[in-house]
């Protein structure tokens, strides 16, 4: 009992003196030209926001000062399944990322399955990942929804625990989505089009009912509600497509139905650079270390560099793994892309600023500016080098990891 009181007291003291000042030999603020700044200081405010950032800041009394060789914004994983696909890979126990009873299930919410206490959430957080877009995995025509959540959230008890409750709807085109009732690629697209056409009819009825009080507001199933949100651009459709013909099919669907499209995976996107540039589509590229089999057989480690050179917006992801490693780590994937032609600061931006932009959260996370969330990662060297350790992780101005990893 006495021990418990002491622990409680200690926790309160830590909390009270919680304001942190970070001194960085090199800081990547991820603003402007993305270039790093030498000898910078970041002050974290009591409200969990960044109080000040700069090279001429005098650290006020009472701050806990932590020094690091390199500091970046908290890393953002643009597409993960952590919290749904748990560490044990045990069906019915911790595998909640894919439900195959029907091919189209946009009504499946990420938060109803999310376990923020799964050890893999701790694993990626301790390595520097502070925000994930996580949810349903590729493998169904529409497998469910994504949400955006910070990795310090252990249980979701209110909408405020997420950055976005519904950040996207996960679709898949290609071999992974084939299965019962979906025998070929053509059938897959026909099924999707049919579902979207029915939702489009509802969108029209809703518009008519709004204009004309004589018209009855249509009743919507859960599934239709989500697809209506997609067709009215409240939520993007994130289509996982690896082969060029599947990427082309995704572009066709967008042309036909006019939703916001984010491409996921996109292994053969290098064959359609001009088309993708023209379409203005952002790409969440497959992990650089994804296995080159099946639809990914023609993947290249140079994809990110090619997208960057072509001015196509992109971000990195850890993706979904069926076996081992059960999760990948987003900046490890960025590192290898950097080894294959992507400039270092761009590789880092593609797991900080760029995903924040694609997720529509760059006003809050992804860069180090006063007023933004105080999410920081401290490294003892180049964040992209395998030999470098993550020494500290800060989320909302609070230290969440101090064990070098």
């Amino acid at each position: 009992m006495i021990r418990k009181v002491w622990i409680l007291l200690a926790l309160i003291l830590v909390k009270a003196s919680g304001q942190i000042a970070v001194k960085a030999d090199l800081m990547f603020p991820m603003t402007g030209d993305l270039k790093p700044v030498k000898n910078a200081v970041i002050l974290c405010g009591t409200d969990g926001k960044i109080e000040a950032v700069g090279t001429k800041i005098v650290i006020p009394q009472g701050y806990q000062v932590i020094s690091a060789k390199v500091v970046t914004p908290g890393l953002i994983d643009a597409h993960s399944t952590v919290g749904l696909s748990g560490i044990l890979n045990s069906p019915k126990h911790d595998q909640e990322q894919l439900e195959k009873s029907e091919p189209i299930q946009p009504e499946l919410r990420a938060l109803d399955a999310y376990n923020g206490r799964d050890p893999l959430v701790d694993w990626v957080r301790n390595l520097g990942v502070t925000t994930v877009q996580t949810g349903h995995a590729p493998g169904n025509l529409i497998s469910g929804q994504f949400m955006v959540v910070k990795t310090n959230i252990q249980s979701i008890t209110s909408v405020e625990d997420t950055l976005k409750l519904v950040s996207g709807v996960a679709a898949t085109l290609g071999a992974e989505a084939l299965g019962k009732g979906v025998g070929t690629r053509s059938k897959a697209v026909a099924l999707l089009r049919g579902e979207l056409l029915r939702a489009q009819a509802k969108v029209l009825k809703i518009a008519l009912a709004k204009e004309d009080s004589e018209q009855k507001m249509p009743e919507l199933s859960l599934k239709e509600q989500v697809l209506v949100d997609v067709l009215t651009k409240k939520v993007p459709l994130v289509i996982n497509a690896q082969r060029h013909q599947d990427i082309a099919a995704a572009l066709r669907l967008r042309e036909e139905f006019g939703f916001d499209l984010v491409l996921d995976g996109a292994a053969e996107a290098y064959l359609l650079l001009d088309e993708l540039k023209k379409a203005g589509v952002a790409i969440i590229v497959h992990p650089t270390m994804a296995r080159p089999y099946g639809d990914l057989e023609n993947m290249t480690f140079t994809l990110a560099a090619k997208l960057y050179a072509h001015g196509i917006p992109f971000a990195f992801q850890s993706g979904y793994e069926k076996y081992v490693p059960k999760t990948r780590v987003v900046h490890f994937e960025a590192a290898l892309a950097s080894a294959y032609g992507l400039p270092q600061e761009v590789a880092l931006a593609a797991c900080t600023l760029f995903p924040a932009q694609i997720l529509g959260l760059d006003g809050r996370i992804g860069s180090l500016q006063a007023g933004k969330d105080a999410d920081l990662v401290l490294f003892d060297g180049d964040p992209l080098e395998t030999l470098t350790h993550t020494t500290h992780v800060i989320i909302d101005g609070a230290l969440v990891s101090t064990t070098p990893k």
Partner: protein
Amino acid sequence: MRKLILLALTPLAMISLLYSLGGEVSPRDGAQTLKAYTNATIYPVTSAVIENGTLLVRGEQILAVGTGIEIPEGAEVIDCGGKTIIPGLICTHSHIGQVAGADSSSPIQPEIRVLDSIDVRDSSIDKARAGGITTVNLMAGSGHLLSGQTIYLKLRKGQRIEDLAIQLPDGSFAGGVKMANGTNSIRESGPFPGTRAKSAALVRQKFLDAQAYLKKRSQHLNGEQKDQPFERDLALETIADLLEGKRKVHHHTHRHDDILTVLRLKKEFGFEVVLHHVSEAWKVADEIAEAKVACSLIFLDSPGGKLEARDLEWRNGAELEKRGVLTALHTDDPINDSRWFLRNAAIGVRAGMSRQKALEALTIAGAQILDLEDSTGSLESGKKADFVILSGDPFSIYTRILETHVEGKKVFDLQNEQDRLFAQGGYGAGHRRQATGCCFYR
């Protein structure tokens, strides 16, 4: 430890060997060609790093390594200024080449040879060359207690398994035997075991049968009927090879209790064993050291994926190093792609391994585990010219593999368009087949 004396292939013997194999491969010409790789940072691995060093190669062999080496007249000089040369990498556990082993008919199938399944033209083998791998132990998966005989290959350019295999003096091909315990070999229904105790009992019975077989064979060979042919049993004969130390066991094992089970069986039957994966090595590192067995490790980007890999830690390498355990690394390709093998060693260094031991784990330690240390695994005069030219530090993520050489022949060159396709991927880098091996798509 049993030493394999490799066939010393004189140029003439090599030519005749290739012809005797009915080779479409032309005889290796210019076996006496001299090549000097100069101005490189050279890691011989078995001796200190050399700055501005020269690697002198004649034909298939290393003639000299060091500084101030006189370059013979007529030698081709290849300036490697700013580049790094390391020994060819040795992967002690891989599933490239569409390798397959035992089928689902029974949990113990020692008669199975993986050499009968390998497609040496598979792009995964080209990719391994692009990853700097020159020697590899190809094995079947871990879904069986014993899934067959493994084969050690040199990644020479060749069209048939015989072109890549390592021939032993008795004409057989070098290899071990793959075994596994833990969850992968446990299945719902027989004849596969349903528990760990059953797994161990099945293995023990098979080894006892082999002991009896050995006795019977020796009685036959010494008996009056010795001129009559002995009735061979392909399965028991392979286990007998293990009992006699002619082959060693490559044992998949993850959990601390499974690791100890392997050590217990080794003690009972006296076979040589290398522990593979050894996810929970850090929990039983003292016991591993005491048993004087070697380990072949893998580092994954996250733990888990199955219960028995939940406690996998990157510090396994450092913990075994502290206790002097002979430790190599493996890709387990397709678990880790062969092209990221150097990166795997860097993870070991990140978690406390010394750079030296991590380099050894990629090279000489693997050679020792495969009993090939007399011919490969380090850059030393007299060894085969198996080496890799890098653009920089072996442990930097930015370093690229520029060339891979096997026995003096360049088998990968980043400057070559086709080779580059295998090195970094792109349209045509794949093939129309599924990944095989381990429990990956089960």
